[in-house]
């Protein structure tokens, strides 16, 4: 998928570092200012948790007792601060347990990014252990979602996820990352997303409408 984002050219010219997809996920979260994230580990997301362990001085992970708790905690975090809440979970039941919180964030317009682990890409569609089509399940309750199957996609997709979650009318975004993408390697560099050509989060204020509104308010009766 070729993501049409602004400043793609300058992004391609930055210096890179060869790291794993899982490490890239953590580095992206840190770059987006996520200092506290909520989640529950499991098989399909273990590589990411392994990297979390190494970066624990820069990013604090809170282990909740249920993935639904992780989403609500991320929501509470987002509502009181205006920042993007982050919740992570493993595949299968871990991912499906996020749905209630995601639906809640969608209808109340709370900025949230959820990251789920997924079975390795060659197993997709085979009813593997803890495999669910979480992208299919979460489509009606997310502002945007996407499945990552190669490590190279990670930085741009996560940047897009945070941009979409927080811009315009905020909302939840789900990113599903296959285990092989987490283990895979990429030349990592990070650039925040500054725009998406098909997405206009903030309509321009129309001076005509503004004057019409002001006139109505000024002429309102005082009874």
């Amino acid at each position, binding site marked *: 998928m070729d993501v049409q984002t602004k400043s793609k050219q300058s992004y391609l010219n930055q210096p890179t570092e060869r790291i794993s997809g899982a490490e890239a996920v953590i580095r992206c979260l840190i770059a987006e200012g996520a200092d*506290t994230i*909520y989640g529950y580990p499991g098989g399909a997301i273990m590589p990411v948790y392994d990297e979390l362990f190494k970066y624990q001085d820069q990013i604090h992970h*809170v*282990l*909740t*007792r*249920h993935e*639904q*708790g*992780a*989403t*609500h*905690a*991320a*929501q*509470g*975090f*987002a*509502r*009181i*601060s*205006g*920042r993007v*809440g982050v919740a992570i979970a493993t595949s299968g039941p871990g991912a499906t347990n996020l749905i*209630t*919180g995601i*639906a*809640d964030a969608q*209808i*109340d317009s709370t900025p949230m990014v959820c990251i789920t682990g997924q079975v390795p890409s060659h197993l997709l569609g085979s009813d593997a252990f803890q495999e669910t089509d979480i992208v299919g399940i979460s489509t009606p309750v997310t502002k945007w979602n996407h499945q990552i199957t190669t490590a190279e996609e990670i930085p741009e997709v996560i940047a897009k996820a945070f941009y979409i979650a927080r811009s*315009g*009318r905020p909302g939840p975004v789900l990113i599903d990352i296959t285990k092989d993408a987490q283990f895979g390697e990429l030349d990592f560099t990070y650039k925040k997303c500054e725009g998406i050509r098909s997405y206009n*989060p*903030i*309509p*321009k*204020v*129309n*001076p005509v*409408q*503004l*004057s*019409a*509104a*002001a006139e*109505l*308010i*000024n002429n*309102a*009766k*005082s*009874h």
Partner: protein
Amino acid sequence: MGEAEEEFKAVVEKSGVPAAWTIMGVSAIPTSHPLNVGMVGMHGNYGPNILTNECDVLIAIGMRFDDRVTGKLSDYATQAKVIHFEIDPAEVDKNVKTDVAVLGNAKESLAQILPLLNKNTHTEWLKKFEELSKIEFEKVIKNDLHPTKEGLTMGEVLKEINAQSKGEAAIVSDVGQHQMIACRYAEFNTSRGNITSGGLGTMGFALPAAIGAKMATPEREVVAVIGDGGYQMTIQELGTIFQTKAAVKIVVLNNDFLGMVRQWQQLFFDKRYASTVMTNPDFVTIAKGYQLEAKRVTKREELAAAVEEMMTSKEAYFLEVCVEKEDNVFPMIPSGASVSEIRLE
């Protein structure tokens, strides 16, 4: 409010237009502000609901005209010119026909409209809100906040919390009767103070959400107000509080019922309390099992001191308050009725 609190306050003060809020909007301006006239919606205040159908201009800011707010749509503000400040174009004309739609970020559009507004006051109009508020006080609020009967009300617990919080604490409510009471009576000076599950109404929201809220703003007091039903949906998150030592204050208003459903069963289903009776465990022992400071209050005389102890603690604290079992939340707009048909009893 999209960080438009200052711009909003300026517009309200200059134009003199009374401001009401939905449960998602409360605390955008301090609840004590003289132009703040209360909450709209199914369990909102009497005045704002009735006068929605009498006003000549209705200004909606970042509002989606949810069915719990509008009641019967064909009978909602039909006499008014509707101005809708909104960032999402799909929301305009979705539920309510707009006369003027001002698209954009409220922070910008409110700042830009300020110079176009005349300085004004609407004292006569405001008086109407006050008159209706007096009626509501006599019939409902007095009994909620200053009860004379023996049983504790949810309202008086909120009153004690307000006394301690002085409008600074964030109140995280779950879903049900207690949520309506909390949204109606909690006092806020600082914005982003009310955190609740509005659109989806997810029970079990408050306990984990309070943890996230406290961690995001550790310097702010965070009080979770939860019913005995919702509490048990995510009760395992006490483990997260125990492990992280997040200094969250938890208040469970226990009426041994799924209160909101029971209220509807009383009003509309001849008191057939199907599956709404809750046989509850000893919440205080459970909290202590998670090494949390915990107390139970069953009498009025104990309430103030217990709330004070909770709010002054520097650590997590659990307070169970046993409230009147069959109290109902009023006012109420019955489902499918017009906002003008709001009932006081």
